[in-house]
């Protein structure tokens, strides 16, 4: 990391006065972001901030190896600007989103269409990319699916059984969460944050809490940070276990499929021991945690954790021992590391392409600063690798919990929250089970939220799924989809 950066540097979970964020004309700003990305940065978030009729772009770029974030903003502008996506594909969805929300056109964007809305209402089902040819047929799947999953529309261009191109249209669950934050935080805000993506309650609530704490210049008590870390890893265990089971279910491998469904419930119940709710609702609050873990429940948690970890060990062993499963997983839905880096993949799918990229390690906040989890990486980029990374993370989260539950810090879990500073920008990255959850908060002159930007890992990763499907059999789509297991509502916001 050189000091040539034109942007302001900060670490994860800290705030910066809005005036100290370097400002440049939009053309220079785009060029500067491009050169930051060229230097090995990764676009964590890019969004617009309305300034009257004009708009400013704000970029948050993560330098994983240096554990530092750089933030920059453009001067207010309107109408158009040269697209960053032309050279940096990882910006393509962000630029579409800015166009959709603020109406500024990124010139030279290869595929400019709405992200969540179609002409202002309803989901973005329109103008799909089409492949011509007599042999090509189009398959439309969704938004209503046969399983119990969220709504999304998938448009395949197929040559026989082979997928030539896949386009994914989402937005069915757009609830206006970011808009609802303006002028906040209100009484409902923390509940909204817990349901940005219901399966990542802890990750989103923690990111929100950290952002508000950074704005107020305080930090949660150590005890609360410890509890958050435990809850985060329990969330990871439950979801990774569920994913391994679902992957087994997709290839009709029944032993692991049925066992993991049950063990996932066991992990969810551990979260319930912690806070009374299986999905971790009501635990993380700005300033601290709403409840503590007394010794009796701690003992119960530790005991049942051991049982569940042993069970998942066995269920996973069946999966890895089955040659038929291996044959099905290996080589399916392959992404190479270069592609993954180009599109800015995060979370287990990125680590399954050999990218060493884990927020708990690269940008640690809270308890993860004191107790680290090794980054789990697998090189192949296929379904097998994504399953394998999940399994490695399951084991390592288990180890982490076993260790941390032995001795937590003393003190009160509840803490106070100072009033948010005026005209300040705060960034919080949390490595949820699905990948990097990025919350950026910007306050106005009265210390109320002026802009709140949420970037769910799914926002980065849906493109990865579309690319992984190229040249694959269409019958492998459900398996590939499950191996990414992205959030629809986290994307739709």
């Amino acid at each position: 990391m050189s000091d040539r950066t034109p942007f302001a540097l900060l670490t994860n979970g800290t705030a910066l006065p809005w005036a100290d964020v370097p400002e440049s004309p939009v053309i220079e700003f785009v060029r500067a972001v491009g050169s930051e990305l060229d230097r090995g940065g990764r676009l964590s978030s890019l969004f617009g901030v309305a300034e009257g009729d004009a708009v400013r772009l704000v970029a948050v770029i993560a330098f994983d190896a240096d554990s530092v974030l750089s933030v920059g903003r453009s001067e207010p502008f309107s109408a158009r600007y040269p697209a960053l996506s032309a050279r940096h594909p990882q910006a393509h969805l962000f630029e579409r989103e800015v166009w959709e929300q603020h109406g500024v056109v990124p010139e030279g964007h290869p595929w400019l269409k709405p992200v969540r809305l179609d002409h202002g209402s309803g989901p973005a089902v329109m103008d799909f990319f089409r492949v011509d040819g007599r042999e090509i047929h189009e398959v439309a799947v969704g938004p209503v699916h046969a399983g119990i999953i969220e709504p999304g529309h998938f448009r395949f261009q197929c040559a026989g059984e082979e997928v030539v191109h896949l386009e994914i249209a989402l937005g069915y669950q757009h609830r206006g969460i970011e808009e609802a934050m303006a002028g906040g935080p209100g009484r409902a805000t923390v509940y909204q944050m817990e349901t940005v993506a219901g399966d990542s309650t802890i990750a989103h609530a923690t990111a929100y809490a950290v952002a508000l704490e950074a704005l107020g210049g305080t930090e949660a008590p150590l005890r609360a940070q410890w509890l958050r870390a435990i809850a985060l890893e329990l969330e990871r265990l439950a979801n990774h276990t569920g994913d391994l089971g679902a992957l087994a279910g997709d290839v009709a491998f029944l032993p692991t499929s049925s066992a993991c469904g049950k063990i996932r419930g066991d992990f969810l119940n551990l979260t319930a021991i912690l806070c009374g709710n299986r999905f971790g609702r009501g635990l993380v609050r700005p300033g601290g945690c709403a409840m503590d873990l007394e010794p009796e429940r701690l003992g119960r948690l530790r005991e049942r954790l051991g049982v569940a970890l042993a069970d998942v060990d066995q269920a996973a062993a069946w999966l890895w021992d089955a040659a038929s499963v291996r044959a099905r997983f290996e080589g399916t839905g392959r992404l190479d590391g270069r592609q993954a880096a180009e599109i800015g993949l995060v979370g287990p799918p990125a680590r399954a392409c050999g990218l060493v990229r884990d927020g708990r390690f690269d940008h640690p906040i809270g308890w993860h600063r004191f107790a680290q989890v090794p980054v789990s990486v697998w090189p192949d980029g296929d379904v097998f690798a994504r399953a394998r990374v999940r399994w490695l993370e399951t084991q390592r989260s288990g180890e982490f919990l076993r260790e941390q539950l032995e001795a937590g810090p003393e003190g009160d879990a509840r803490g106070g929250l100072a009033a948010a500073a005026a005209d300040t920008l705060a960034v919080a990255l949390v490595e949820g089970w699905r990948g990097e959850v990025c919350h950026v908060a910007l306050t106005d002159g009265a210390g109320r939220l002026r802009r709140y930007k949420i970037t769910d890992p799914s926002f980065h990763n849906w493109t990865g799924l579309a690319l992984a499907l190229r040249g694959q059999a269409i019958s492998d789509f459900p398996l590939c989809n499950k191996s990414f297991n992205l959030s629809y509502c986290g994307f739709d916001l």
Partner: protein
Amino acid sequence: MNIDITSLIAQTALVLLLSPLLSGLIASLKAKLQNRRGPRVWQPFFDLIKFFRKDMVISEHASGVFAAVPHVVFATALMAGLMVPLAWVPAPLQLFGGALALVGLLALGRFFLALGGLDPGSAFGGMGSSREMTISAIAEPAMMLAIFTAAIAGGSTNLSQIVMAGDGHAGRFLEPAHTLAFSAMFIVLLAETGRVPVDNPATHLELTMIHEAMILEYSGRYLAMLEWAASMKQLVLFGLLANLFFPFGLAPGMLPAAVAQGMGWLAIKLVGLAVAVVLVEFTNAKLRLFRVPDLLGAAFVLATLALVSLFLFR
């Protein structure tokens, strides 16, 4: 062709009633292995009754073929069921060609099923039909060769005569021709009945379906007929496998005591085969679609070897 009316009525009832029970047995065994309580064995009957009482929703793009398909598929499956000796010999229906007619009937049913998948013009149905045809193009020759092996040993292509000729030669199962043909036929059985590792009958993922994709547009009465036909086809293939390769315990006529004994043996053979199928399903993942031809190719090679070894080790 002389038809024994008692035998005809009895076997029709047997095929109609036993086939959903066999499907229920497999589903129940599968659930038990997963530590689930699972559906009761007779659950498929309730499902059929439910479907028969429901209204049908038919795509506006569907033609008359769509309505003809369930009837043809049902009729061919039932006729095939009357040709295979199940609990007694001879089977009530003995068309010219015997085994060939049986394979032909199943192919006719499949042809119409594929048409039914294509007719409403949905993407899933078309994919299902094309996959079914690809698979059956390889599975059918393997099945023919396996049956021919038994036919040559029995000196006839008439299924009842093959079974009768084999009765009392229980030790013959250990002959290489017999074992190879049985293995080939078992793989064909998995493919033809749409079971793992070829197809997953329990899946809800349209993009991976084969048999289920073709009947995706059907509902109500037509769906009931197709589901029933699928169970009957399953029973036909189970019965064929059971009696061609384990030809003992069949009643030599319609005497009540002998028939009861024959039914007992049939139940034992079917349960045995069901357990084998469920174990395969439970311990294997579904194959990648493009690998299915490899498996069926293996079945074809096994069947060819069976035929060759029949002459070599005679």
